[in-house]
């Protein structure tokens, strides 16, 4: 009894202390000016919608996790900052791009010497040690460890020789009580010395090179993971350009990593870059800004007002503020902003916004001519152009297929069409198909359950969908729910017809085509539960092909197969508009990668 009481009292006291002190931040780090100037350069940036959940690359998965991890951690490769069309990779932690063997299976890597982890108490004497080959494999193995609660094992699955077996064996050993052994060998992971290693792939998958630039593959030190345990999520130790200074519920701030590897601002400017790059930045040591302060905004108005008052370096333009910033007809920036030196930038996203059918559903699923006709009727009654003008200020790109603009396989003509028969609005043809399906003017067709995640204007978008399908006599039951409930309904194959969006993890259509690959059926990413042996065979074939006309040709065939089976209604890719303060230099917005903060500069003389 005494034991319980004492424990209760101790916990109550601890709780009371926590309550009164309410600590939310780590100890402040020195914020001395960097090597690029005498004055401390500080910038405030927005994180719209949500906050990161973790700064552990092993556990992270969201865009927000990506943004935070990209500040603190480095990947083997990175996107070349100024090159966008197409995106190009370049070495980050490596001395040069990894070289594949002739058969494309064995990849050799050479790490830059002298790259050190940030100073941290987890290291002896608090001094960060040099990053070595073992760290790379340790970081990747964490994704295999069930205790990490990783969400990105799919990146490694069936990719590296022996890695899947290692995962099974070690997790079984952990369950059996003998422990997960990180030192157990993996046939496809070979350490040659501290700076050289090789990776052997199960097949020469092209996407492997892109994985090396994804934040989930960032390199973490074993000492930090073991030192912080479950708190490693909030105590990041990397080799990246910034160190976490403070993380509260409102935002997070980072300070320049004084031991960051030698890296300089790129000199290979692309067309138009001269206008955004500050002259003084060319060839400057990175990172340029000393302190970066992010604020999380769940609502757009405070973010917009903070930009208007000149606090934030940039802002995405919320839909409700579009006409404040731009002329709706000409899409040009309004003169009041131009006068203040504010510039705008449009960022096309690798987006795939669509309405998906569950191909295993009794009513909508199946591959018989009648079932295909029913789905085609729905597709042809759906007018994505109307969605674009009603909700996106006509800024989006409406296209056919699942391959977003900018990627091989996207229908490149101006209309972004695969063929006129694939996209609405064509009410006459839609009615024809509906009759072919056995439901003339919708007669006898039960109401279709339409699953939608609840977000800003999703009720209005659902209303528009109802109205559009109503034109051919199709009735919808709209089921509005939070996103996780939608995911569950899709994973359980209960969602009949649902609204979804996919942002490409890397700029290759393979990532989008995977959404229709048979083995990826729910709860995997193939939520349409699309089954097509020929499609699967071609997908497997293209996985190991380098970009080429031949591969693009196959992508087109695969795209057309899915379109012919009418597995989804689509598509649309968003274009995000940004406004940038005159004093924020070198900012070339992108949402494909997030390690660009190190390139930013501020010109204090231009701040009001």
């Amino acid at each position, binding site marked *: 009894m005494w034991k*319980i009481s004492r*424990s*209760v009292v101790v*916990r*109550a006291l601890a*709780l009371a202390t*926590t*309550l009164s002190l*309410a*600590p*939310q931040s780590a100890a402040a780090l020195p914020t001395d000016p960097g090597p690029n100037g005498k004055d401390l350069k500080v910038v405030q940036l927005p994180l719209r919608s949500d906050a990161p*959940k*973790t700064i*552990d690359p092993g*556990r992270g*998965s969201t865009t927000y996790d990506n943004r935070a991890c990209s500040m603190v951690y480095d990947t083997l490769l990175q996107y070349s900052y100024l090159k966008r069309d197409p995106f190009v990779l370049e070495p980050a932690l490596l001395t040069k791009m990894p070289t594949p063997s002739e058969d494309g299976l064995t990849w050799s890597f050479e790490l830059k010497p002298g790259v050190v982890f940030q100073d941290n108490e987890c290291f002896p004497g608090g001094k960060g040690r040099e990053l070595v080959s073992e760290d790379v494999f340790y970081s990747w193995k964490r994704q295999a460890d*069930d*205790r990490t*609660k990783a*969400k*990105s*094992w*799919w990146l490694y699955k069936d990719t590296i020789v022996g890695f899947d077996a290692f995962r099974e064996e070690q997790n079984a050993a952990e369950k059996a009580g003998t422990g997960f052994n990180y030192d157990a060998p993996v046939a496809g992971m070979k350490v040659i010395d501290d700076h050289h290693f090789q990776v052997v792939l199960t097949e020469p998958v092209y996407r492997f090179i892109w994985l090396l630039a994804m934040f989930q593959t960032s390199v973490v030190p074993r000492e930090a993971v073991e030192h912080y345990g*479950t*708190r*490693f*999520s*909030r*105590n990041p130790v990397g080799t990246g350009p910034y160190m976490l200074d403070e993380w*509260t*519920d*409102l935002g997070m701030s980072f300070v320049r990593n004084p031991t960051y590897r030698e890296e300089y601002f790129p000199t290979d400017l692309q067309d138009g870059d001269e206008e955004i790059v500050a002259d003084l930045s060319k060839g400057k040591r990175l990172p340029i800004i000393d302190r970066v302060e992010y*604020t*999380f*905004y*769940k*609502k757009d*108005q*405070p973010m917009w*007002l*903070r930009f*208007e*008052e000149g606090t934030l370096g940039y802002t995405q333009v919320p839909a409700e503020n579009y006409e404040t910033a731009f002329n709706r007809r000409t899409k040009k920036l309004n003169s009041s902003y131009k006068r203040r030196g504010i510039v705008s930038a449009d960022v096309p996203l690798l987006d795939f916004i669509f309405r998906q059918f569950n191909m295993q559903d009794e009513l909508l699923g199946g591959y018989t001519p009648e079932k295909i006709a029913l789905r085609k009727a729905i597709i042809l009654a759906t007018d994505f152009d109307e969605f674009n003008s009603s909700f996106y200020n006509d800024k989006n790109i409406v296209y056919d297929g699942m391959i977003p603009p900018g990627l091989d396989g996207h229908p490149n003509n101006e209309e972004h069409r695969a063929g006129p028969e694939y996209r609405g609005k064509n009410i006459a043809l839609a009615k024809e198909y509906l009759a072919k399906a056995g439901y003339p003017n919708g007669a006898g067709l039960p109401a279709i359950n339409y699953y939608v995640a609840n977000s800003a204007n999703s009720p209005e978008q659902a209303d528009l969908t109802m109205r559009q399908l109503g034109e051919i006599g199709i009735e919808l039951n709209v089921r509005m*729910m*939070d*996103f*996780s*409930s939608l*995911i*569950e309904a899709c*994973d359980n194959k209960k969602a009949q017809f649902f609204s979804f969006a*996919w942002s490409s993890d890397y700029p290759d259509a393979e990532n989008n085509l995977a959404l229709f690959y048979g083995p990826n059926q729910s*709860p*995997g*990413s193939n*939520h349409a539960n699309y089954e097509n042996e020929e499609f699967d065979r071609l997908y497997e074939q293209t996985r190991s092909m380098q970009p080429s006309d031949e591969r693009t040709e196959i992508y087109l065939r695969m795209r057309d197969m899915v379109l012919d089976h009418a597995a989804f209604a689509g598509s649309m890719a968003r274009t995000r508009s940004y406004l940038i303060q005159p004093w924020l230099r070198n900012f070339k917005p992108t949402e494909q990668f997030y390690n660009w903060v190190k390139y930013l500069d501020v010109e204090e003389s231009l701040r009001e």
Partner: protein
Amino acid sequence: MWNYIVRRLLYNIPVYLGIILLLMALLRVGAADPAYTFLGKNAEPGDLERIRQQLGLDKPFLVQYFHFLWDVLTLNFEQESWGRPGRTVGEMLSTAYIPTLMITVPGLMITATISICVALISAFNRGRFADRILMVAAVVGMSVSFLVYIIVGQYYGAFQLKEWVGTEVFAIEGFDMEKNGFISGWLTYCALPVIISVIVAMGYDTRFYRAVMVEESTKDYMVTAKAKGAGRRKVMFVHMLKNAMIPIITRIMTTLPFLIVGSVLLEYYFNIPGMGNRLLGAIADKDFPVIQTFTAIFAVVFILSNILTDVLYALVDPRVRLQ
């Protein structure tokens, strides 16, 4: 009185256990499976089972129930949040309640004080011009959406005001009590949200309190007091107010537990790291440990405030006996 309090506490134990049972059952039956939320779009069948095990959702419901009760009983809030890895439930909640109370407590106090005064004036001038003006204002105030007050208040009260006066009076958003001291911090970051919450609540409260006062003003003791020559102020603030305290206490005490919930809209727009913000985030993340712990605390506060309400009745009105 102490007997009464102890007895009421004992009676409420089964109610409390029932609340926790119902909540945990609802979360596990009615809400989406947290394992799906956790894994996102690229889940595999094996992963789902593994995550359920790691979250403890594979255990029998009663085991989960008693395990949680034991944690509450021993004030063990050290479970890791499911939505925010690396943070404990205790940290998540303890850092959120102070910002919330810094908005809601002053809001309640100011609203109650002003509303009661306005209601007294209105009731005393029943049917006259002042009463009509005040009631029209109250109805108009009630008719405008809370969201409109926030959006307009933030735009004019913070952004435009700064443009006009050239310095920041109220912050557009944020919460920093350390930068310039507590008072200055509160005035910068909390005063505007408090003003908005007071304006929003005043319409409802004034009408309610006026109705109470009007009813009291027709009672015989009011006529007696006036006949005995008591002054207008004494009649209002001593006789009428004292007798109207029971409904006033009821209203204030029923509001009390909700002070720790805060206002999600205010917290979202003004970026206040409060409980409403936190709770909605936990619901979106299917963060059961946070939702359960918050509800367990809320239920305790609710039960205690109910008991306290009864005690206060007895204190302000000698006719009420606690038995």
